[in-house]
């Protein structure tokens, strides 16, 4: 049993090396009931980089993000058309279990949402236990590793049994990041992960994103232009015009999008005129 699991991990790593963990969005549209929230979005997310999604409120950034790990369909009446390729497998392909997609694509929400009844340790271990890890030593090791990656270990190592909700907002958000990292996803989605935090905590999360791109593909939604410019390598600008659902206006290297935008509307937005 242990053998096969190790073998699987080795092969996933090699595979990742080769396919490089790309996410390709092709002709993606999304609806909430009859309301169209996203129109024909196509973009290639580069592996091991930070990609920022920017755009005015309501343009569909969160919707796009939630389509990437099939969390969109959790909302009652929400539907999708188009493709999202993870490596080269369509996550919307027939017979693909959303649960297995979500294990490969982790997510961090705008509001920190640790499991209220679980300790710090159990929060981080929740995903591992689900995947069948029971061995105490293995759990301890992975929990510590995830908390270190999330730059939270030093602050909580003496109170791992305390409830996760007893931490500060910024610490809770890093706990949620650790929880997502513990299961070793290929992609990490973050929806305005720092918008509920003070500047110091925000700076920590930003540092973290830059750290994380060494191992993960990071996609982050942000309203903060400086933040997008600081942490991201690529930027996608979405806009919802005359209520038609958000469409991709411009996508490219962050420096280019901010300094030499090709589209008028991008220029207006990044310079604060929209």
């Amino acid at each position, binding site marked *: 049993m242990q053998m096969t699991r190790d073998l699987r991990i080795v092969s996933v790593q090699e595979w990742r090396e080769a396919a490089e963990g790309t996410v390709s969005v092709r002709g993606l549209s999304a609806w909430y009931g009859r309301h169209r929230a996203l129109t024909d979005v196509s973009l290639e997310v580069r592996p091991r980089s930070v990609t920022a999604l920017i755009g005015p409120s309501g343009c569909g950034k969160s919707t796009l993000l939630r389509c990437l790990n099939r969390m969109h369909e*959790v909302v009652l009446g929400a539907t999708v058309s188009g493709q999202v390729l993870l490596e080269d497998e369509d996550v919307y392909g027939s017979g693909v279990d959303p649960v297995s997609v979500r294990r490969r694509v982790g997510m961090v929400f705008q509001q920190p949402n640790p499991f209220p009844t679980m300790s710090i340790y159990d929060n981080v271990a929740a995903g591992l236990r689900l995947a069948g890890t029971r061995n105490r030593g293995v759990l301890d090791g992975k929990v510590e590793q995830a908390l270190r990656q999330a730059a939270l270990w030093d602050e909580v190592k003496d109170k791992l049994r305390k409830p996760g909700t007893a931490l500060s907002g910024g610490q809770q958000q890093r706990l949620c990041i650790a*929880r997502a990292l513990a299961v070793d996803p290929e992609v990490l989605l973050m929806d305005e992960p720092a918008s509920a935090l003070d500047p110091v905590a925000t700076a920590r999360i930003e540092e973290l994103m830059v750290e994380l791109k060494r191992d993960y593909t990071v996609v982050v939604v942000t309203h903060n232009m400086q933040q997008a410019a600081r942490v991201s390598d690529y930027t996608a600008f979405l806009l919802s015009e005359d209520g038609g659902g958000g469409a991709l206006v411009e996508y490219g290297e962050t420096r280019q999008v901010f300094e030499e935008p090709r589209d008028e509307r991008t220029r207006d937005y990044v310079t604060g005129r929209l």
Partner: protein
Amino acid sequence: MISTYRRRKLANMLMLSLLGAAALVAVVPLIAVAAYVVLEGAGAINLDFFTQLPSPAGEAGGGMGNAVVGTLELVAIASALATPTGVMAGIYLAQQGRGTRLGPLVRLLSDVLNGVPTIVVGLFVYGLLVLTTGSFSALAGGVALGVIMLPVIARTTEEAVLQVPSSVREAALALGLPEWRATLRVVLPTARSGILTGVILGVARISGETAPLLFTAFGNSFWSLDPTKPIASLPVQIYNFATGPYESWHRQAWGAALVLMTMVLALNLAARWLSRSR
């Protein structure tokens, strides 16, 4: 000017004292009942009351041990049947049933069931279990009480699950937990105190029920734990003794009333405490 003001002030005072008086009237019966039951019943409470069988007609002494145990068994059977069913129904109403046609229908029917006179529930179980098996039984009584308890648990569970922020459930799903597991491991523990409150309120609701037991559990003058045999219960014993001709029976009935009232009061306090400590 002045006189309008004084008139308004007077009217105001009048209304306020009326409201105050009405509030008093509303609590007076409770206090009166409680005081009366304590006064009349306290004398009958002693060790024998909990350990002895009722003494033969008219003789002094004896107790209601079998009825105390019987009530506990009936409540246990009812809870064992209604808690899992009610909790699962409540989860369905709060989560999977939303946006379907079945969900609102189940909610409506469960509210209707909550309003069905309990004697009708007893009659239904009488037809379902007593006539078919040919015998009154503890099981039939437990089923009747369980049916009465079911909607209480289902609706409080629904409320408790709805109180769990959707962000918590989404966090679990985003981590790759299948829906049933997210419900079991994350949503239910978060809603636990609310659900427990519902179960306790359900127990409080049924422990004083008399009518549905009259023709299901029936009654028993002897010790019995056998679920297939008739069983004694405090409410039915109160009914029988209070309507009987003997002074000693009346005293015992008051004692039983005191025990029952204390039990329900304690359950209600526990439910309050639980829902407040959430």
